[in-house]
């Protein structure tokens, strides 16, 4: 039983990181019907921005929660900048082109970031410094909660609340939801579509940037291909929850994080990655709209 609780805690922490990345996938899909394959790499950029910021500006800093929050904010800005550049120069010129063009462009951008990253940062893994004070909280019965798990929960939770507020309680959120219903109609009623899409990219990318730093804190080995697997898994989480649906992405991510940890804990870690793809296949076969998605005939 104790083991089960420990697995659950670990799974929730992993799921929270997936959730932050999955939100970016789902938001961009919501407004543009585009699967932004470069999103996982924006997550990687966040990690590296955090790493280089620490190296250059606070090399001997004492680990503290404040440091972590500063690094997260810087990484969010860095990732958002990359997101904006990608949107402006890669996706916007193709807005009226057939959807397959922009999809292929997304894959191209993803490869550019991965291999450009290897060129700039080097292909060898680098180690993310300790920026968070490390402490283990004994919950009794040999169950431990680590300080970085707590931070991951908290930061993810706060960011998701902010996002929920933005999407459902603000003028911008209303415009975004309008565009997700129909881009043309939203344009006709006077919504500045380009601006809303840009802001969507900013929000999605900065969430990925925050996730990048949290990932670096939890698993301090980062390299330019780091975004590949978590990116794919976050995509699967978004599909599982119903792509385009904000709440669905979070639920999908948490479910994926938990099931991966249970599989590694009770069956074998060899099947951990296979499981994610099995889930993807099952969802596409049995419930293509995802858990919370609405049925809509869609050609991708």
């Amino acid at each position: 039983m104790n083991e089960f609780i420990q697995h659950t805690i670990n799974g929730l922490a992993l799921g929270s990181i997936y959730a932050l990345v999955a939100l970016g996938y789902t938001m961009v899909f919501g407004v543009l019907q585009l699967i932004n394959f470069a999103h996982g790499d924006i997550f990687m950029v966040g990690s590296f921005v955090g790493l280089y910021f620490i190296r250059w500006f606070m090399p001997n800093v004492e680990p503290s929660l404040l440091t972590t929050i500063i690094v997260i904010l810087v990484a969010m800005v860095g990732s958002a900048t990359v997101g904006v550049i990608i949107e402006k120069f890669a996706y916007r010129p193709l807005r009226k082109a057939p959807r397959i063009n922009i999809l292929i462009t997304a894959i191209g951008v993803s490869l550019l970031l991965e291999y450009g990253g290897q060129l700039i940062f080097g292909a060898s893994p680098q180690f993310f410094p300790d920026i968070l004070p490390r402490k283990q909280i004994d919950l009794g019965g040999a169950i431990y909660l680590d300080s970085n798990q707590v931070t991951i929960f908290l930061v993810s939770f706060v960011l998701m609340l902010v996002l929920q507020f933005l999407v459902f309680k603000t003028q911008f959120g209303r415009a975004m939801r309008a565009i997700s219903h129909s881009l043309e109609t939203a344009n006709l009623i006077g919504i500045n579509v380009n601006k809303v899409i840009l802001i969507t990219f900013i929000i999605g990318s900065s969430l990925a940037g925050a996730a990048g730093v949290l990932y670096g804190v939890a698993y301090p080995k980062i390299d330019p291909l780091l975004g590949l697997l978590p990116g794919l898994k976050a995509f699967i989480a978004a599909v599982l929850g119903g792509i385009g649906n904000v709440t669905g992405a979070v639920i999908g991510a948490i479910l994926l994080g938990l099931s991966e940890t249970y599989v590694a804990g009770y069956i074998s870690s060899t099947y951990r990655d296979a499981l994610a793809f099995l889930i993807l296949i099952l969802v596409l076969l049995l419930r293509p709209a995802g858990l919370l998605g609405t049925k809509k005939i869609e050609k991708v």
Partner: protein
Amino acid sequence: MKILSKFFLLCAILTLVSCNKGGDDKIMVGYFGSMTGAEATFGVSTRDGVLLAIEEWNKAGGVLGKQIEIKAYDNQGKPEEARLSVEKLINADNVIAVLGEVASTRSLAAAPVAQQNKVPMISPSSTNPLVTQKGDYIFRVCFIDPFQGEVMAKFAFNSLKKKKAAILRDSKSDYSMGLATYFEKTFTALGGEIVGDEKYVSGDVDFKAQLTNLKSKGPEFIFVPGYYTEVGLIARQAKEQGISVPLLGGDGWDSPELVSIGGKSMEGNFFSNHYTTEDPRPEVQNFIKNYEARFGSRPNALAASGYDAARVLFEAIKRANSVEGPKLRDAIAATKEFQGVTGIITLNEQRDATKSAVVLEVKDGQFKYLETVNP
């Protein structure tokens, strides 16, 4: 027609040029290693050790009156790239012998190519016994895992007085799987008990599920025969899960990155290795001094093994008085009581070196020497 004949002439010239084995005044030696990727320090340290040996020999006049030159390829830590590197070294660069790899999985992938082409290959530090069984042209200058597993099992049982072990091994690495098995054999034969055995896959970053399972079995220590990147992460996550028992491992831990990634979680853990910088023998201290002067860092065991492998090869060329495959092979096989930095190297019939191993402890970010175990 004129163009055609010119083309043939060009072809003929190119063939002649490529036949010319790098000039008559040079001896070409091949090196392949993981100089980038998750085991980057393995490849870089070994290459630096090889380079130092070449520079020292060249300064003293080279071998057979010729200067030695190295051609090095990076395999990014991938077995298929390792195989390809050796194919390139032998077929395109016409090297007379190949030095490498550290990781057994990659040595195993490349060895058949060297064997088929009858080009001697010396692995500096692949410890899986299968490596040299690939053929009579494959050698190594280090001990093998049945011995290394025994060393750590005896150390845990006799010196640390621990009776209950758990194992966390890398299912994708021949080195890790082999070493874990040999450890288990000796440890249970001594009367110890293996209470848990979990696996991970190299490249994984999350080991919490396996560690949670192992913890519930109550081991007195965990044997982690992996490579430094994963070991560092495992040590960290073990502390996060409230595991306070020590970790034990093998020579795959030897990297300056081990401590930079594992941080304080690495303190008080033990591993077996090929040599210690605290060895007072003049060969060792001179090597450390020269290496530091040349590369500005303290040589680890992989650098020392690379240095030894290269010198064993040059000595053999000198004795064979030839760089032809079969003659060179016989000369390497006849290596006896060679005074290496990592110990006295005599190659046995299996083309393996029988040498002593040392046990080191991670203390204040340094590797402190504890004991020497003889075969």
